[in-house]
């Protein structure tokens, strides 16, 4: 009895459980207030419109696990999108070849972050703040501030707007990346080393872990996937512009932190990141479906963008606070329950 109860409080106290409740709440709320929220086409839209952020959140997780941060990914999406557009529309390259170059460019951008962070020992926040401006600035320079590239072939646009086996095409790519990152983080020595580095970088070095190399890999992966996300984004919008991906880095970081990854590094899971992403994606889509309710004399859907920023912030703070509260409640209860036998776990 006490054992099951202890286990129950443990599960409730887990961050993922809090998040799951939030997601259920969102689904119930939006299906009641919104129009066609749970319709087949809207559900696939929820994912279609947010896959890029999901991809960035997945690869942001290893970066944050090492105790770092990558603010440059949104700008890197913009730069890769613009370069992709130029290569296809001005150089006449095939979308496949241009896509591969975009991914390579993203990889290079990530390697640049990695080099500055590990070779020059600069703080990740500062380095990626710098490249955040640099990459966006380059994207704007390449388009002279206003040009955009459109008119891509239908076969390419199908990547962003088509379906495969009933699901949006890009969702399959997302699944593949998610599976890969999950294996990386939870099943490889590299993933283990990310945690060790996040908890104790010096300790990891003393244990013979190649700290600089492994940190570099996290940023390189983040950059490569930013390149991939750029191609998917262009395929969905049918247009490559310098402002592609503005603000995506913050949404990705929000999803990761909402998913329970410690911003100080060390602890966190891919399952948490996926749930965090889902919570953010549902919120952004759901607000746009609320047409018959008004806020400040306007339909909610028409101010969805403004509201979603505010609500994402509240969601992040609320979920984190709820976890802390649940945890302290659980420890208090555990203490009350086990007081006659304070340390059941010690076992000589």
């Amino acid at each position: 009895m006490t054992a099951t109860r202890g286990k129950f409080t443990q599960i409730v106290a887990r961050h993922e459980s809090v998040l799951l409740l939030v997601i259920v709440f969102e689904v119930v709320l939006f299906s009641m207030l919104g129009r066609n929220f749970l319709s087949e086409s809207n559900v696939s839209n929820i994912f279609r419109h947010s896959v890029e952020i999901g991809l960035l959140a997945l690869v942001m997780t290893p970066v944050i696990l090492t105790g770092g941060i990558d603010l440059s990914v949104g700008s890197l999406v913009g730069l890769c999108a613009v370069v992709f557009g130029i290569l296809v529309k001005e150089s006449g390259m095939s979308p496949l070849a241009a896509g591969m170059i975009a991914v390579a460019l993203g990889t290079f951008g990530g390697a640049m972050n990695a080099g500055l962070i590990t070779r020059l020992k600069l703080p990740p926040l500062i380095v990626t703040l710098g490249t955040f401006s640099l990459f966006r600035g380059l994207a704007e320079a390449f388009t002279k501030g206003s040009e955009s590239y459109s008119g891509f072939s239908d076969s390419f646009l199908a990547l962003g707007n088509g379906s495969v086996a009933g699901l949006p095409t890009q969702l399959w790519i997302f699944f593949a990346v998610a599976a890969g990152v999950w294996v990386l983080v939870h099943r490889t020595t590299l993933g283990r080393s990310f945690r060790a580095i996040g908890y104790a970088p010096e300790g990891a070095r003393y244990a013979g872990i190649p700290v600089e190399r492994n940190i570099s890999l996290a940023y390189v992966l983040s950059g490569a996937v930013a390149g991939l996300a750029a191609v998917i984004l262009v395929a969905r919008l049918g247009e490559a512009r310098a402002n592609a991906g503005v603000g995506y880095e913050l949404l990705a970081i929000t999803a990761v932190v909402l998913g329970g990854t410690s911003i100080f590094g060390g602890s966190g899971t891919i399952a948490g990141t996926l749930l965090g992403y889902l919570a953010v994606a549902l919120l952004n889509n759901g607000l746009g479906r609320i047409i018959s309710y008004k806020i400040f004399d306007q339909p909610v859907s028409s101010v969805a963008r403004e509201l979603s920023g505010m609500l994402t912030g509240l969601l992040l703070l609320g979920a984190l606070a709820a976890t802390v509260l649940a945890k302290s409640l659980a420890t208090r209860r555990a203490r009350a329950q086990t007081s006659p036998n304070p340390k059941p776990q010690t076992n000589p």
Partner: protein
Amino acid sequence: MRALKGVSFELVPGEVHALLGENGAGKSTLIKVITGAHQPDGGTLEVGGVEVPGLSPSRARELGIACIYQQPALFPDLTVAENIGLRLKKPGLFSRVRWAGQRGRAAELLKRIGAEISPDAEVRSLSMPEQQLVEIACALGSGARIVIMDEPTASLTQKEQHLLFAVVRDLRASGVGVVYISHRLEEIFALADRVTVLRDGESVGTNPVNDLTESQMIQLMVGREVSALYPPAEGEPGEVVLSLENVGCSGSGVRGVNLEVRAGEIVGLAGLVGAGRTELARVLFGITPGDEGTMRLLGERVAISDPREAISLGIAYVPEDRRKHGVILEMPIAHNMTMAIHRKLFRGGMLRFGAEESLAVNFIRDLGIKAWGPAAPGGSLSGGNQQKVSVARWLATKPKLLILDEPTQGVDVGAKSEIHRIIRGLAKEGLAVLMISSDLPEVLGMSDRVGVMRGGELVKVMERSEADAATVMAAALGTGGTSGKEAA
């Protein structure tokens, strides 16, 4: 454990009273009690014949107690005058600063101690000894009657030392009582009137300096028998595993170390804190790679530039700072134990949880680690058990040379003798062990040979039979029979 047990200490005006003791004898704790940083849980403290209960740091300052630490605690971006001004008078939030008065006062105080330092200089631009002089000026200016100096000459050159000595003598002449802490016996003879020796948190006597010889002082500091609790050595050591010729590292101050460690042998490294022992270990393990001399492992010449290289060559290092470098407290002990063998145990980079768990279960059993299981986070274990986890991580690498840095620091008595037994067992299995320890009985009890370091050099290597507390301490302090460098 009590840091101080019934210490009696008395300081009269116009005297320099030296405080002497090994690492961990309780000197710092006593200073903290006198300056109000720590509250004693017994006994009384009187200043000027008046008992002061519950002394706080600010009350201590009011009573004229000032302490000058090894590392001066000044604001580097402010000028000398501003620093002195701040120390003498706590400014109100919006009170006006009287620049001229502040500057004049500072100049006067600096002149009084004979320091040629401009009051307008930024503290950042001053050398360490100059900063210490500023500290002394602050102490004087605040009307200190009791000045405590904690190893003030540790970072000074010969010339600066003489300047400092002159200042101390001036203080004495003006009726200030000075508590002087130093490891350098010659300074104590040159400067102090009386000396109190602390050992294991107890005062073992206060004597006029002239009544004691150097060797009597050392005897007072170490004066205890090595207990028979240590596991005995057995068998003859085998082949030479580690051989060092003139090894040094200019970055960390290690110089000209010559040493051999054989299979099956425990070589202890004694010395005072800061003698360069950990620095030597860090050179051997490639954390701060050496840049002088030759290092050989099993006869092969090696140059180690990185811990990874050291590990693959069969060197293991159980670091001194267990919580920062030895064990990752948040991670399960099983993960901690396999951290140095990722490449061996997890071929292809994929984790194998079964293999990891069985390895951890074996170590938990073999080393007697008290934990509820392999998944217990390192931080949930006691200090001694954490240390065993740290040792297990390195045994898993199947090393040829095991370097242990303060293996029983902060470990309770029971776990300590268990760790000793484990170390001796490893040596019996043919491991070469280099053990750094500041615990003199431990070094003497465990080692087959004892090396003593001082100032980054290995100044003496003794067989177990010729090593006793007094000779080791004399070599560590650089006095007595060991005038030169006799590296073996």
